[in-house]
């Protein structure tokens, strides 16, 4: 039987469509436990490739004959080897092109809505890592919010729809992924905005993003109104776009809320986080569509693959927004926190411009899930 490559884009489609897939992950057990391809109807078998060097007979009875099979490894090489063995044994299988490295870098653009003047908002779903970034487009101009380091994709996308990138924003200094914001701004001569309270140690010039600033994209005054909302970081800033979308950064997610500890300030910032979520956000229209900077679990995806929900719905359903008791809230966000993201200190320093690791090193630093939330 033949074996073929499956791209991250094709796997993403299967995730979005809740299709069945049998994932044979041949990485180390610890790597698999830490981070894997998530799909609602995916089934898994984890056997390290080095257990299969003498043959795959032992696992043949664990591989279903009636399901599509995808072999996955870190960078592709081992999955090709195992896929070939399975194919020689008569199975029809695919391997993940580029491995988990490519999976971690794949961005899937999903349209999340229209603007009043005919403009559009796109969400870029980094499916493997749970990062969400945005492009707001209006009258041939575009703004990018919370860009990942895969900058080419945004540039190509903007070019494809004939838009010029004029403004680039980061809602906060990221600790889980390397920002592409500065690089995009440099390449396009766009203005790079960063909250000054998060930028006290940065080594480059930026435009200070503070609460109450309005930025116009395109000629018809698409309004990006900033709202100071500290808690995940001290500078964290949300945006209301076109009085319709609330870009909540790492403050509020669909099924969870931001964690205040990644800059080592959990105790100091827990009060800010509560103020942002329980007072500042309460003053906003419940009709706003919340567009966060992350998703944590695959169940947060809508049917079209987007991650978006009305603020009013989150006030009803998000556990983190419904904790009356302040002490209980304090406990939730300062105790029993999930493990910190891989290399988060180095990632923060990279985003400050203090260190400049090469692409290979950047990939390595970003390996794994994002872990920016508490549930």
């Amino acid at each position, binding site marked *: 039987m033949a074996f073929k490559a499956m791209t991250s884009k094709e796997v993403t489609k299967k995730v979005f469509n809740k299709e069945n897939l049998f994932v044979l992950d041949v990485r180390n057990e610890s790597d698999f436990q830490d981070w894997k391809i998530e799909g609602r109807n995916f089934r898994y078998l984890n056997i390290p*490739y080095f257990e299969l060097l003498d043959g795959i007979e032992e696992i043949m009875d664990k591989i279903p004959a009636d399901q599509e099979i995808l072999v996955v490894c870190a960078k592709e*090489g081992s999955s090709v080897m195992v896929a070939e063995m399975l194919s020689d044994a008569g199975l029809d299988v695919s391997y993940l092109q580029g491995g988990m490295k490519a999976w971690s870098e794949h961005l899937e653009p999903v349209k999340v809505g229209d603007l009043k003047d005919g403009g559009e908002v796109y969400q870029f779903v980094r499916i493997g890592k749970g990062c969400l970034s945005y492009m707001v487009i209006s009258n041939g101009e575009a703004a990018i919010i919370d860009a990942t380091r895969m900058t080419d994709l945004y540039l190509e996308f903007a070019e494809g729809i004939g838009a010029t990138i004029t403004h680039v924003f980061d809602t906060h200094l990221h600790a889980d992924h390397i920002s592409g914001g500065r690089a995009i701004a440099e390449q396009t001569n766009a203005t790079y905005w960063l909250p000054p309270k998060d930028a006290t140690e940065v080594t480059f010039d930026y435009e200070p993003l503070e609460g109450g600033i309005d930025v116009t994209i395109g000629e018809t005054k698409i309004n990006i109104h900033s709202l100071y909302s500290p808690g995940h970081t001290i500078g964290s800033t949300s945006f209301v776009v076109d009085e319709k979308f609330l870009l909540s950064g790492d403050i509020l997610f669909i099924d969870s809320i931001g964690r205040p500890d990644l800059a080592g300030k959990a105790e100091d910032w827990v009060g800010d986080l509560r103020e942002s979520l329980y007072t500042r956000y309460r003053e906003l229209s419940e009709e706003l569509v919340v567009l966060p900077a992350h998703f944590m679990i695959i169940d947060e995806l809508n049917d079209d693959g987007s991650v978006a929900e009305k603020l009013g719905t989150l006030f009803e359903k998000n556990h983190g927004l419904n904790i009356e008791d302040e002490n209980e809230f304090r406990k939730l966000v300062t105790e029993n926190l999930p493990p910190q993201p891989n290399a988060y200190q180095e990632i923060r320093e990279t985003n400050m411009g203090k260190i400049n690791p090469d692409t290979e090193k950047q990939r390595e630093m970003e390996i794994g899930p994002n872990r920016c939330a508490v549930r």
Partner: protein
Amino acid sequence: MENIKVNVTLDAKGLACPMPIVKTKKAMNTLEAGQVLEVQATDKGSKADIQAWANSAGHQYLGTIEEGDVLKHYLRKSSNDSSIERKHPNVTSNDELEKKLDANENIVVLDVREAAEYAFNHIPNAVSIPLGEIEERLSELNKDDETYVVCRTGSRSDLAAQKLAENGFSNVINVVPGMSAWTGKTNTLNK
């Protein structure tokens, strides 16, 4: 740093996964039990994989040294060390040896593991003479010293202690189990 003495060196530089492990497995087949293999690789992922592979295959992973872009992994081929019956009559425990070291008693610690095992982790001031070299290097030791022999599990040190006794060493003590369970002070290489 100076090179660690090994039995076989495998050059897997420039090879991508899975080749470093495929080659390591093949090279390991050519080694005798207890011998040490050095694998030179540039694939960063090889560090975690070689460790996990060694564990699952029953080999001993000693450690990795990074020199620029090159990772040098050290592995010792599985041996049935621990299944051999010990014969040297004079035996002590790790705890007893640790007490003597802490009390600064005038004793000699002889580590008979392979040079690579010693390099990654050993008791401070221990003398390193691998079991296979004991006979030709007897002159480096003093027959009247109170000599504590250590290895990983107490088997190689048993054989070494027997050899020393046969050669007129009067005060030789085998330390059981040895480095596999050693909790006292050590000099280590950063793995």
